[in-house]
């Protein structure tokens, strides 16, 4: 259970910030998410919910059937990989240790510090309150996008789930909003990773 924590304490100069299961599931998730998002935009364009479509040139699949093939292939990768990440995160205690507690006062203070460019990144093994909030938020959005996706894919076989989502039409909006949250996160997340390159190195090499 606490094996990872022990290693971190035992060898301070060789601290493993992101164990290998985090790194693998993180990058598999990034790939699956991007395929899901780009093919999802093409599917959205076939019957838009709002007064816009996504520029077809930045979508994946070429046409509706192609996009659906991508979407329903990558969904397995996304779901299985996500379950592995959640299972490890809960079982190893990583989630409890790294993401909690999230204190509103600290989120405010860290947001202010981040905007002023005064947030310390000396210790990558500890997430600041903004990181905690963003990561927990995107994990919740990830769970929501899978559940709402199931609700619109199987509104009869999984009709209880569709009902929880507010019905078929409402579930389409839930699915869209969860996508928008994830894309918003992704923009901020990638920008921050590039601003603090050693965090990117840690997610690739572990330390």
């Amino acid at each position, binding site marked *: 259970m606490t094996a990872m924590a022990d290693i971190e304490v035992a060898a301070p100069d060789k601290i493993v910030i992101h164990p290998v299961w985090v790194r693998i599931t993180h990058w598999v998730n990034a790939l699956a998410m991007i395929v899901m998002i780009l093919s999802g935009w093409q599917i959205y364009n076939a*019957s838009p919910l709002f007064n816009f479509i996504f520029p077809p040139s930045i979508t*994946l699949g*070429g*046409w509706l059937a192609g996009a659906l*093939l991508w979407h329903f*292939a990558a969904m397995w990768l996304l779901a299985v990989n996500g379950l592995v990440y959640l299972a490890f995160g809960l079982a190893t205690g990583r989630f409890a240790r790294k993401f909690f507690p999230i204190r509103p006062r600290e989120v405010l203070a860290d947001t202010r510090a981040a905007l002023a460019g005064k947030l310390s990144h000396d210790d990558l093994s500890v997430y600041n309150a903004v990181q905690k909030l963003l990561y927990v938020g995107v994990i919740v959005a990830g769970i929501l996008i899978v559940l709402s996706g199931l609700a619109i894919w199987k509104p*009869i076989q999984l009709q209880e789930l569709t009902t929880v989502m507010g019905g078929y039409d409402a579930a389409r909006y839930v699915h869209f909003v969860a996508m928008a949250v994830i894309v918003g996160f992704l923009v901020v997340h990638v920008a921050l990773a590039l601003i603090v390159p050693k965090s990117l190195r840690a997610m690739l090499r572990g330390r």
Partner: protein
Amino acid sequence: MARIRKPIPGVDPKLLIKDAGKLLPDPTRRLFLRGGASLGALTFLTGCDIVDGLSAEKALRKISEFNDGAQALLFSAAKLAPTYPQSAITRPFPFNAYYGPDDAPEVDGKDYALEVGGLVDNKKKWTLDELYALPEVSQITRHICVEGWSAIGSWQGARLSDFLQRVGADTRAKYVWFQCAEGYSNTIDMPTALHPQTQMTFKFDNQILPRAYGYPMKIRMPTKLGFKNPKYVVAMHVTNTDLGGYWENQGYNWFSGL
């Protein structure tokens, strides 16, 4: 982002006809991977060069077949599609096909005779009067299009499972295949054919099926996406061979269950 028309709920039939065009493959984009920027991004991300769009398409189709199996496993004959009150019916109910309503097939009801073939005991043809005399069932259910929009409609007709029994169909066979007047065709799995809500539909909203909705007969399956619900059906075969279908052959998922 390009601005376009408003979304469905109001339902303008003219717009929906245009919509159907989106189901069609754009000839310049037949290969799924010719996605310009996104192909570049994918190549970059995976670190391998997927120039061979065809083999990617093949792999994706294999996964789609796997998804057919997964959906068949998930399918339960006991799960009924939710039904709705009369007031929930979408009016006007959208017309959707790969042709405009003026090009919809015009079937002459007087000459019509449904052909029943394959693994059935009785291959007699059925006239419309004989079909109309079958015990009537009714449903108000949601029609869900592969494009994502949905609409609630009211359909009346005969239960397909009763009809299959009546003609002595071998219900251990794997598939039922439907042939339509305009050349459209469609193969479905036997469990869906036997689902209690799968209906040989002769009426929409208690009126003889209008031409746009598939006169004289459509097969209504609330458990499948709209394109799996054939209209203008002229023949039905019980078979152990998957004879494919118009959209399925072009890459849409075969099972397409809901």
